[in-house]
């Protein structure tokens, strides 16, 4: 037991640091992953920690609907053990060009 991870359809991945989850009193990510009529991607494992209720392949095909509910729930009610990484290489490259030209938006990029 160290981490749980799966890829998502749009390109990206979810990683949960299960070591941190042991101390999490809410396991909010599991209850947040509640997709009406579609079932859940996340479920509680035998040890009570988050586990995938579907296969990683199914999750990557769209079984994880990328609603980000687990991500925000972990941030607000959990311990911040979940990383929902959604790369934006083209936008990053655009911003890099703006920075190189000294015209990047200053609002925190």
């Amino acid at each position, binding site marked *: 037991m160290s981490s749980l991870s799966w890829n*998502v*359809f*749009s*390109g*990206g991945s979810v990683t949960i640091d299960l070591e941190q989850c042991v101390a999490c009193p809410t396991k909010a990510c599991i209850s947040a992953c509640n997709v009406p009529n579609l079932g859940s991607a996340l479920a509680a494992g035998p040890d009570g920690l988050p586990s995938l209720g579907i296969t990683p392949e199914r999750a990557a095909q*769209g079984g994880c*609907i*990328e*609603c*980000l*509910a687990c*991500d*925000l729930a972990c*941030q*607000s009610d959990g311990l911040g053990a979940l990383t*929902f990484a*959604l790369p*934006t290489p*083209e*936008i990053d*490259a*655009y*911003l890099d*060009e*703006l920075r190189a030209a000294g*015209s*990047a*938006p*200053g*609002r*925190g*990029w």
Partner: protein
Amino acid sequence: MPKLLEHRGKSLLRAAGITTPDGRVVTTAADARSTAEALGFPVALKAQILAGKRGLGGGIVFANDAAEAEAAAQRLFAAPLYGWPVTELLIETKSTIQSELYVAVVSDTAARAPLMIVSTSGGVAVEEAAQTGSGTTVSAAVDMRRGAPVYWCLDVVRSLPLPEATLVALARVLSKLYEVYRRNDCTIAEINPLAITERGLIALDARIAIDDDAVFRHPELELERSQEVGDRNATALELAASKIDENDHRGSAHFVQIDPDGSLAKAQGKISIGFDGIGTGVSMAVMDELVPLGFLPMNFCDTSGNPTGSKLYRITKAILAQPLIEGYVFASCLSSQQLDVTARGIIKAFKEIFAPHGGAPTIPCVFSFRGAWDDVALDLFRQHGLDAHPWVRVLGRDSTERELAQTFKDLHERWRAARPMVTA
């Protein structure tokens, strides 16, 4: 709809057997000179941009010797044309033209069929002909089950006042042009002008646009897909944003920059803002309210069709990557879209973008959540503290478009007044 530059369109015409002038694409003035020398004079130097009326704008020039060709190329590369940089020139042998025709196959949505159009008023005269009725124009819907064989095309053009041999040659070109249209899933395949010369019919220009929904079927065209940018090249940010929708069918994230460099807002004395709307109707209504109050959306964006949270996250990053915006407006119509998912994507993007400021937006932002799960969306904004920031206002289903615009104006005025204290 993705459009092809002239030289790429002409390569499709040549592949179908339609004659085009001898030519090559160059990217430097020195190459322009050597290419012109190799082709033989006189030559035409043609700026490769997607805008129309290049000739009137100085984007097509002729040269009679190498020095002229190099000097003309230097001038064309040096200055933008209709606001767009010229990075490629098509150098072609200049044709001796007897007269010019206009030919096209276009998707006619009313007729639900391809429409073949032929006019004896080609070149720049075609628009005048459309207004004045000069010249002779014929058109016919193509039965897609049958296609456009040469004998059928000959029937279409038979009434034109042209010599019989020219009519036969024209019918052959039209049949081939229809094949270009079909084979490449075009919405328009146009040759204007199709020159009548001693060498026969020669396509002097090519305007080809591909159906958005068929782009995936044509990897060989290597199209940079971007939504509805009109007669100009897509901006770098539009191309970046187009990747979000490219391989993900779940909902849409249509993004187009209305005023990419802010020049329109500046000319009109307005303030540029970022914009996202769920549904084009509500977007238009909100813009109609914002513009009289002194704001001009730098972009249009439609995130409808129940997109994923990840799609909202990515497109929000694209909208906020516009350096000149002084605010952000999000508006939803009373749709069935699951607004809590939408809200999560926006919240995730804002938390990341404004992380150096503790997640507090440094520009005025107004959100209007009206529709399915809007109460959950509002709860999420509260839960994550986004509604408590001084430059954020969150409105619910009771708000109108006018209230949204006025709320943004009031907030922007306060932000402007406090601006020295803000790291914008």
